[in-house]
């Protein structure tokens, strides 16, 4: 479903401070699976996640999503792919501060202009499903770490994406909350979604729901693709 072929990402190319974040990665990710990109800080896993999630363009190589090459798509179409195919869960949730949890969940759907009542119902249902319904009117900064991560998952799901991409989702959670979060990701897999997680947390890497762990170091894959 998602294929990366010899993908390379260089920041500040040609400058003295040039950084090769991803170096010739070839990888296939099957649909309806949970894949973990494991590696120490600076190994390039977050960069790889942003590349396969259409949040950044590779310096070279090809990325194919559902048979469509997205590498050279114009910005507008790339946004369309990002919106319709991917849902993102960032480190620390990355919710918009000062905005309620419910509105944070609704944000990805605003550009679609669907009627408000339906969107409100859907966002509230997602929060209920993640045991966060009672915090719908709370502002994002008032949520605990675990609540913020679940709110971020609800936001990632509001446009019903096929792929959920999560970057270090347990980085700021304790063991119990980390296990809860993996259970939620397991439910997403059961719903038929593809889940890709970047993490070096053993709780994530060893979770029963995980189908595959891909190790990274210095921008390259350590295991076979």
């Amino acid at each position, binding site marked *: 479903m998602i294929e990366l072929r010899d993908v390379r990402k260089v920041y500040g190319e040609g400058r003295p401070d040039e950084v090769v974040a991803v170096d010739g990665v070839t990888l296939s990710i099957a649909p309806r699976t949970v894949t973990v990109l494991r590696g120490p800080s600076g190994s390039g896993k977050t*960069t790889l996640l*942003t590349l396969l999630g259409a949040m950044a363009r590779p310096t070279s190589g090809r990325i194919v999503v559902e048979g469509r090459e997205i590498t050279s798509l114009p910005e*507008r179409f790339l946004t369309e792919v990002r919106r319709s195919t991917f849902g993102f869960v960032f480190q620390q949730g990355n*919710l*918009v501060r000062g905005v309620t949890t419910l509105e944070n969940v609704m944000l990805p759907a605003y550009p679609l202009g669907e009627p408000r009542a339906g969107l409100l119902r859907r966002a509230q249902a997602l929060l209920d499903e993640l045991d966060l319904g009672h915090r719908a009117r709370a502002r994002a900064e008032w949520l605990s770490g675990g609540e913020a991560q679940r709110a971020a998952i609800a936001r990632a799901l509001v446009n019903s994406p096929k792929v959920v991409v999560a970057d270090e989702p347990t980085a700021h959670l304790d063991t119990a909350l980390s296990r809860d979060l993996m259970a939620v990701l397991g439910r997403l897999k059961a719903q038929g979604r593809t889940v890709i997680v970047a993490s070096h947390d053993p709780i994530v890497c060893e979770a029963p729901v995980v189908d595959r762990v891909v190790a990274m170091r210095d921008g390259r894959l350590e295991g076979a693709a």
Partner: protein
Amino acid sequence: MRTFLERQRYLLDYTLSSLARRKGKNLSLLAVYTLVVAALASVLFYTQALRREARLVLRGAPELVVQRLAAGRHDLLPDRWVGALAGIRGVADARGRLWGYGWDPISRANYTVLVPEAFWGARGEAVVGHGVARARGLAAGDRLLLRAADGGYLSLAVREIVPEESELVAADLVLVGEEDFRGLFGIPPGLFTDAVLAVRNEREVDTIAAKVTRLLPDARAIGRSEILRTYDSVFGWRSGLVVVVLLGAVLAFGIVAWDKASGLSAEERREIGILKAIGWETSDVLAMKAWEGAAISLAAFALGVLLAFGHVFLGDMALLAPVLRGWSTLQARFRPVPFVEAWELAALFLLTVVPYTAATLVPSWRAATADPDAVMRS
């Protein structure tokens, strides 16, 4: 269409909540912006009201005034000139006029002493403008003492004060009878300050003015439209002066606005990155920022215009009137009639709202066109 409107509604809702999140910053910007618009609008409104008032007052002014020039200097005009002017074809009436400026050392102001066409007072009486009355503390029945040309003093009984409605041009007036005027200025009978003509056809004023100068080569004919132009340019010049002074404030505001607009904070850049990462297009971010700029600038424009309206038409332009109305000691007390020209509002709108909204879009466009990943990392 419904989707488009719903989308705009979402964006506007989000913009308003975004503005509310940065309350302190946005409210201070709104306050400065409103004051700048109010100051500029006050100058525009008041100048326009002054011009309009001058036009209304001068509607009853003579169509043509003829002066005698001696080597280019205004000189007294003999009564035979009046006869000659009355004989010009197209002139309905010609009348010699007596008026002059008199410096009053007590109030340290110039008065305009004038003999009206039909003075309704008796000899030794005067009708004075509100400015003169205020400066000298006069009421009807008091005496006004003026130093005459022969070194003596002319004592006049104040018969009444000129009604306030015409104060813009009558504040410094002292109306007297002909004998008193001639005594005060030492002008012998048979000489006048100038002459006023009434013409049969108003459209022929220029033709008659040309006939006057042909008949009397030392004459200068001044039409009513020229007097109006003089008022227009005087008030225009003063308003220009004030606008130049205010330019400092406008410039300071421009710097504040540009700084606000161009210096997207790390938090704002991060927010744009998040929005793009979760599926907002560049155009959505720009639309949101455009709504933000428009909300601040339209609110500031509306508040500024309302403030200016109140300041000019209800508060008698308390802050800027002395500069625009004139620097005379006998300043007219004048309450402008509420009247605003649409083109003035449009010009003010173009000068304030459009540049600010544009300034907010440029940095947002730069942030919104970058990859969300890059925006969030920076």
